[in-house]
């Protein structure tokens, strides 16, 4: 019988419950690599979250692990008799002798400004083993755990007050709940981010000797900093969160056999946070050329600029709106179509207010579309106004659809376009307007559009097809699995 490689694909806040680039990437991966048996472990926000993607037959199991909204974190609430047995077993002796040593050692690393990835992994693995027999909620909510936390916090250079300490301990209680999960036996773990979703990779590697592949689209720490810069938490809480995630991230980088990134921009960040340069491979995203291809564009009455983006601040929709006002002054019949799910309602309201303020009601419209391929065909220009990106799918789709691109020079976008589109300084509406006007008005505009679209199409077909990226991952799976097999063999033969 042919051995089928089994992969535990771990996600956090993405596939299969949320939309967005990482989810699309996961969906492509599991659909295209049909000879791989996937187990999905998805960290979700709440138990009420439901899958948006239907899993193909080669997905043999899909476990959703809610981080919040459960009364008994770290337990399978539907199998309470087993939980109850573990609760009874979790007595003071077990807490003091078997839980506290691992918990304290983990805490020391999480609070440290220079954490040791090996010690952290050892502590987490010890806790993982402990939670096979004992109850997670009773242990993590024990007074012994709280005292250990306070003791470690007092010894650290983060000056938490009691409220900060309460918040921080609650985060730990929730974040570490995945240590109580029993993961399937797999050949390798493929984590889709370097944060909490990477922990199963480390645990399976230590427990089963599984291979560990870490793929990052955005950079976990970078996104965390962005989140914290506008978070309502105290400085001490933010400092603790940054330390916690930095420790987890560096542990993941340290233990991963291979780390993949989308391009040079992300690679630099990964190196900064401790990833080994020799283990980093760039694997750009790809789309299906059969779905996204140039189509005869229907006759249009108005020049159209398309933006496909979920609506929140980092997507820079406000920058686009300001640029639209300048374009409208020169091309009065222009229309800007923004298609995407509203993620941040408050930000969306600000955008609508800006549209009204700049009297762009007839020129800017928001909506969602289930037919993105037609949307690209109907657009004259695709515009990406983002403030932060990895390797955006929308730009690849636009290139593959033969739609010329104007994009903010963020993340790996310039590498992605490779000169086949116009890049502008991020957050700079006038520069964006100038670039858009180059493609929409004036004598050479149509030729420039046609030329850029052609070059972009060629480039996309050469480098960014779904086939290329899935094939590359299949190769990496084989390499990692083979290396693991060799390691096991060499251990067995002494």
């Amino acid at each position, binding site marked *: 019988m042919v051995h089928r490689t089994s992969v535990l694909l771990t996600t956090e806040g993405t596939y299969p419950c949320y939309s967005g680039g990482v989810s699309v990437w996961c969906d492509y991966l599991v659909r295209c690599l049909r000879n791989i048996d996937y187990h999905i472990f998805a960290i979700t926000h709440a138990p009420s979250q439901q899958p948006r993607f239907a899993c193909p037959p080669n997905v043999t199991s899909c476990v959703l692990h809610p981080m919040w909204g459960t009364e008994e974190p770290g337990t399978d609430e*539907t199998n309470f008799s087993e939980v109850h047995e573990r609760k009874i077993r979790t007595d003071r002796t077990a807490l003091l002798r078997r839980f506290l040593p691992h918990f304290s050692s983990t805490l020391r690393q999480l609070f440290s400004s220079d954490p040791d990835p090996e010690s952290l992994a050892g502590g987490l693995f010890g806790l993982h083993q402990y939670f096979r027999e004992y109850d997670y909620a009773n242990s993590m909510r024990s007074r012994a755990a709280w005292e250990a936390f306070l003791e470690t916090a007092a010894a650290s250079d983060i000056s*938490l007050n009691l409220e900060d300490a309460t918040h921080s301990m609650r985060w730990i209680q929730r974040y570490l709940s995945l240590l109580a999960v029993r993961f399937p036996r797999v050949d390798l773990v493929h984590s889709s981010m370097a944060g909490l979703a990477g922990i199963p990779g480390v645990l399976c590697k230590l427990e089963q000797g599984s291979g560990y592949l870490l793929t990052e689209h955005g950079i976990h720490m970078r996104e965390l900093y962005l989140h914290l810069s506008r978070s309502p938490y105290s400085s001490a809480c933010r400092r603790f969160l940054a330390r916690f995630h930095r420790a987890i991230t560096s542990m993941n980088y340290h233990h991963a056999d291979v780390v993949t990134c989308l391009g040079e921009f992300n690679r630099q960040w990964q190196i900064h946070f401790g990833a080994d340069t020799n283990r980093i491979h760039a694997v750009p995203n790809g789309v299906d050329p059969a779905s996204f291809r140039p189509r005869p564009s229907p006759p249009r009455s108005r020049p159209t600029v398309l933006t496909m983006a979920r609506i929140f601040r980092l997507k820079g929709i406000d920058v686009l709106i300001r640029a639209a006002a300048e374009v409208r002054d020169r091309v009065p019949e222009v229309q800007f179509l923004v298609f995407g799910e509203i993620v941040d309602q408050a930000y969306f309201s600000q955008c609508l207010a800006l549209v009204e303020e700049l009297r762009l009601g007839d020129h800017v419209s928001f909506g969602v579309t289930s037919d993105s391929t037609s949307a690209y065909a109907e657009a004259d220009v695709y515009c990406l106004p983002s*403030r932060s990106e990895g390797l955006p799918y929308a730009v690849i789709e636009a290139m593959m659809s033969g739609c010329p691109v104007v994009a903010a020079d963020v993340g790996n976008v310039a590498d992605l376009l490779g000169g086949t589109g116009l890049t502008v*300084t991020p957050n700079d509406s006038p520069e964006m307007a100038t670039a858009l006007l180059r493609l929409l008005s004036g004598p050479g505009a149509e030729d420039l559009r046609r030329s850029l679209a052609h070059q972009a199409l060629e480039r996309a077909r050469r480098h960014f097809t779904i086939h290329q990226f899935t094939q590359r991952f299949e190769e990496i799976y084989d390499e990692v699995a083979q290396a693991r097999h060799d390691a096991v063999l060499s251990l067995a033969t002494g």
Partner: protein
Amino acid sequence: MTRSPKRATTLSCLLPPADSLPWAPPLDSCDVVVRLETAGITDTVAQREYGYHDAWGLAEACFSWLRTFPASDVRGCRQSSLVEYWKGLSFALPLCLCCLAMVIFRFSLWGGDVSPQLAAAVGFGTVSSFVTTGGVVQAMARRGLFFFTVHDGATGEIVCWRWVPLGAAWLAICGLVLLAPCRYYHWLPAPFDWIALAFHLSLGLLWLATGILHMLERSLWSAVATVAGICSVVLFHRTLHVPLVGAQITGIAVATAFAFAASFVFLRARRRADGGRPRALSSALDLYLAWPYFLFGALYFLLIFADRLLAWTVPDIAAASPVQFRGDYETVLDVALIAFVLQVGGVRAATFTFFRNMVRSQKQHGISARAEFLRDMKRAYAKNATSFILLGAAVSTCLYLTASRFSTVVHDRGGTLLGALLGGSLMVIGLWNTSLLFRLALPVDVAAAIAPAVAVDLLIGYLLSRLGSYHYAVAGFGTGAGCFAALTTRNVLRRLKALDYYYLSSSV
């Protein structure tokens, strides 16, 4: 050497924003790089416009002066203690409406100016409906509230509707179990035993429905349901000349239907607002988490009503049946109830203020100053408890003097009123402790306190009412309430020694 950015004034992207969104100073230079990049200052821009090799260099230079900016003030929602007092009081609104109906029509949704035997039947049915459904309502509300707190309206709705048939079944079983000895020992002669059963069932269902509304903080709709019920009684009894008992059962049914319909609408709205799918529920987990609340709910009403049951069942040769409604005793207790309701409103407000102050105090105390924090909170508790004692004394004195002056019944039964007022005030202290312990997710502490309190209530009340007069049953209530207040106070004081820990472990 650190040099100032060339055009520091143009780096407004790094400064606190003009909008009301929260802003925090950067944690380190990495944080600054991220902020610069998202503001469009990439390596190229940093080199071209600011003269640095890359964004990292610029970030290093900016970090030292940016870290001195204070974080923007994030204001929490301000909620008034007065609003909390009103919310705490609003549960009694239906009761007030019933009292008003009694004054206007001489009857209400249940009870009225009726024969002693009918009054005994109605009273018996009413008390048993409270005791039977009290536990179910508490358990349902606690489980439902958890899901609503975590914005899981879909599961919250299912949980509520799961407890309703359970509660109805429990109500029917208890009703039949009570009917058997009632018929065998002739506690209530036919058809009064059946009337008692009818009130037990119909009122029990009404409590289940209004329990959902109270949980959803829609107590005003409970009041509307009560008004609808009273109007129906008036219509059927006064206009259509249906006998009072029939009209009242119909009125209760109308109120129940209205309350269930309102519950359905509000639960569905909550489900829609929260979105998501309901989670798989474990009955075993439900029972594990809900049993102390169930026990408390049932025993609480037994503690409140045990003295009445004892007073009504004191042997009386002249009485037509072993269960004899005591009108004078009931009047005195109703007067004491006013004082109780006025004080209970403060429980919610005091709990709200206590925890608001606790969070403030936590912010002011570092980890090393934990002992000071705990001492402060112990003081805050003592201050609150003293306030309740003073409030109880003030309200009770006012009510005692006023009622004694205007009611001869009350004047003649001054001792009973004093006992009931004292018991009510002690109950309020017990409830304040209960509220704190529930907030700290320590329901077992409450269940462990109320069980002996009920035993004391029954024992003292029984002995004194049998050895002396039925009026002495109130002593059972007074000592039971005192026991409840003392035991819950002891439990709270024990938990206050590690309040920070219990507060942490109460989180969802």
